[in-house]
């Protein structure tokens, strides 16, 4: 069995660097666990399984967003970007400026503490920290923003350390070019730093205002939209990069299209993501028609790099599988090491990305924003992405990273290999009911959808079904967290046995020649067909409403 490049790379790092990375990973798993608890309570309350008063429910909803979206996703990204530059960049022996990264971890932990505490103490501003909701809790609101500012500063420092680590071997003349993974990791680190600056731009004026040191933030909604757009695409870019890494780990396959092509595709994220934030603002009063149309048009390109990476990976896998005897249109898929929990996780991540992606393209059409924005359509589709795609992929990566850092084999791989299917099953229920609810107008960020009996009865039924889906998602994620914690803290370690309990195949090192790869293209065609159907459904529904809207300012 070939040695894991990732695990061997981690084992080579000095003890101090390994301790730092364990810190990031440990905090990430803690945030994931807490985010899961808050999310489960939120979903169960919306479903009517439990009853929460608003003064309890909305702080928990705030904490779910804060913990899962910001701290889970950013602790894990900070740790993984350091890990990738340290283990996949030729010539790197240790992290550069690791004290900066330690300081970054400390700031992020401090920020985490503040962001967790303030909603409990009364700063219930949802995870986007809307200044309008601060009420009389100005100081607590200020500390809430301060939590985000510390997170941002910490991320910035981690980015500096990551890029410096990748640059050092080049400055020393040890390497002439980066691998595609190193290249993409540096881009990832750079975007983390850009996002940190965007966060400071959004939260610093709000914090100063809350502490009585400045005027009320005048353009918070705009600043938030720019920040949010970048921070919610970063994990997706990281996800496709990690698919590269994990496929190489588990199947031994590299891109058949060459490293240069992969680098160009990763660059497309830098080109297409930043200018496409307009679609988050389609429902904002006063946005001109030209801006809305332009926003829709630009947003069409946002899926291009992700689809390209998907095609590169699937085509590379299929061509190699066929070179190893794979037959039939889908027969080769069975040859993949599905008993490996990381393989199962990224396999389901691809499925969930297709589902979430198809529905997300409904929302980028500005004419459909008045039908779907601010409805449960939004959480209905984005959980396919945040949980089903990004989180499953990050967890898959942790199944290699934690054994590499601790020397302990992964806890119960056979059980963990089943969890992606449970998660996806739950997501199908959650998302199916949630998206339907969205089409029908059920609002997001609301616990009692009955409106005193005025709302359609089906709203409550759909929320109940959403809760059923959340049960499956909760069980699967809870087992994941348990397994990761057990692997982190198990007393016994066994050098050399870290990943021997994870099934792999080795298809690399052979010429694939003229092998065909049709599954990727066919999958993309199905995806596009789904986009057409779901978008057309939105238009048809919009046109069937017994109301016509014939004008107004801005129209």
């Amino acid at each position, binding site marked *: 069995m070939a040695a894991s490049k990732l695990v061997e790379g981690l084992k080579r790092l000095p003890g101090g660097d390994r301790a730092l990375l364990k810190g990031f990973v440990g905090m990430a798993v803690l945030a994931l666990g807490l985010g899961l608890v808050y999310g489960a309570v939120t979903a169960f309350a919306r479903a009517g399984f439990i009853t929460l008063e608003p003064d309890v429910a909305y702080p928990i909803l705030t904490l779910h967003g804060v913990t899962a979206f910001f701290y889970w996703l950013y602790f894990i990204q900070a740790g993984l970007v350091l890990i990738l530059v340290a283990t996949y960049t030729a010539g790197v022996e240790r992290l550069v400026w690791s004290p900066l990264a330690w300081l970054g971890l400390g700031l992020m932990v401090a920020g985490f503490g503040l962001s967790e505490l303030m909603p409990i103490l009364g700063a219930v501003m949802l995870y986007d920290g809307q200044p309008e*909701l601060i009420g009389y809790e100005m100081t607590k609101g200020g500390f809430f923003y301060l939590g985000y500012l510390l997170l941002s500063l910490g991320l910035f420092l981690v980015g500096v350390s990551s890029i410096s680590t990748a640059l050092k071997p080049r400055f020393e003349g040890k390497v002439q070019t980066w691998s595609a993974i190193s290249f993409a990791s540096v881009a990832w680190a750079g975007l983390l730093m850009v996002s940190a600056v965007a966060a400071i731009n959004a939260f610093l004026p709000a914090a100063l205002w809350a502490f009585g040191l400045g005027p009320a933030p005048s353009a918070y909604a705009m600043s938030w939209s720019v920040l949010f757009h970048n921070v919610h695409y970063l994990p997706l870019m990281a996800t496709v990069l990690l698919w590269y890494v994990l496929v190489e780990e588990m199947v031994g396959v590299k891109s058949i*299209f060459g490293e240069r092509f992969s680098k160009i595709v990763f660059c497309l994220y830098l080109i297409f993501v930043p200018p496409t934030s307009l679609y988050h603002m389609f429902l904002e009063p006063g946005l001109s028609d030209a801006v809305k149309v332009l926003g829709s048009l630009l947003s069409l390109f946002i899926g291009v790099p992700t689809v390209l990476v998907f095609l590169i990976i699937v085509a590379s896998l299929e061509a190699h599988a066929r070179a190893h005897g794979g037959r039939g249109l889908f027969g080769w898929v069975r040859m993949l090491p599905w008993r490996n929990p990381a393989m199962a996780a990224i396999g389901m991540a691809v499925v969930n990305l297709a589902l979430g992606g198809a529905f997300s393209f409904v929302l980028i059409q500005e*004419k459909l924003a*008045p039908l779907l924005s601010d409805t449960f359509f939004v959480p209905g589709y984005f959980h396919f992405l945040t949980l089903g795609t990004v989180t499953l992929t990050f967890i898959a990566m942790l199944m290699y990273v934690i054994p590499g850092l601790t020397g302990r084999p992964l806890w119960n791989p056979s059980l963990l290999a089943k969890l992606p299917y449970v998660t996806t099953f739950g997501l199908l229920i959650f998302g199916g009911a949630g998206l339907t609810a969205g089409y029908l107008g059920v609002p997001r960020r609301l616990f009692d959808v009955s409106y005193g009996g005025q709302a359609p009865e089906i709203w409550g039924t759909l929320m109940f079904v959403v809760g059923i889906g959340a049960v499956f998602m909760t069980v699967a994620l809870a087992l994941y967290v348990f397994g990761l914690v057990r692997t982190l803290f198990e007393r016994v370690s066994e050098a050399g046995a870290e990943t021997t309990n994870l099934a792999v195949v080795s298809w690399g090192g052979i010429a694939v020649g003229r092998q*065909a790869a049709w599954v990727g293209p066919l999958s993309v065609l199905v995806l596009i067909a789904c986009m057409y159907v779901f978008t057309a459904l939105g238009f048809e529904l919009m046109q069937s*409403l017994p109301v016509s809207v014939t004008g107004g300012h801005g129209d």
Partner: protein
Amino acid sequence: MAEKPDFDGKHVTTRRGFVTVLGFGVVSLYGLWAAYGAAPTSLAFMSGAEGGGMKGMGHGGEGGMSPEEFNRLADAFFEANTLPDGSVRPARREVAGVSAEAREHGAAMPGMSMSEEDEHGDEHEDEPVIVYVRASRYGYEPDVLRLEPDVPYKFRIMAVDADHGASINFRMGSRMIRCRARTLTEAILMFTAPGEYLSYCTVYCGEGHDQMMAKIVVA
């Protein structure tokens, strides 16, 4: 599946050009948008022209009116149109005065773009009836609004304390309206079927958010 090699020995499905073209395939969704009239087929939109055949599906707003001015106009509207049961039924004739006042106000306010008819100061039979809606924690004024079918109503909505929604549910779907605090949001709506419709807040505004609703009766 036939495996047809291309000229340089690679199958077409494993060529960079093929996957690149396919990757950009998602952009083809534009064709569906255009078919529904939801996207322009030229760059006319850049010069400010209407974007397509599905006109007015969005809603707009202006920040030029102060909350004080809005409240003055809204109070006049409520006073003129409130029925004995507390509900509000805007009438064309009664609203005309308010409409003219609003028009006068709008013409004087920077950033307020009024319609061509407004600028001429003319009143037309088919001019939309102006309806004022005031949103504040945790309710709307009016909380019951009585309207007629097939009559255009120009909704002038302001959230006077915090961000709110003023969305309307039609059972098979909703019309979402987001109102930023102290910013005038306008939309011209014409209800085409009688019924009782729930109007509800779709932007979290505080602990009473769940109870923030009103009723629109179209008869």
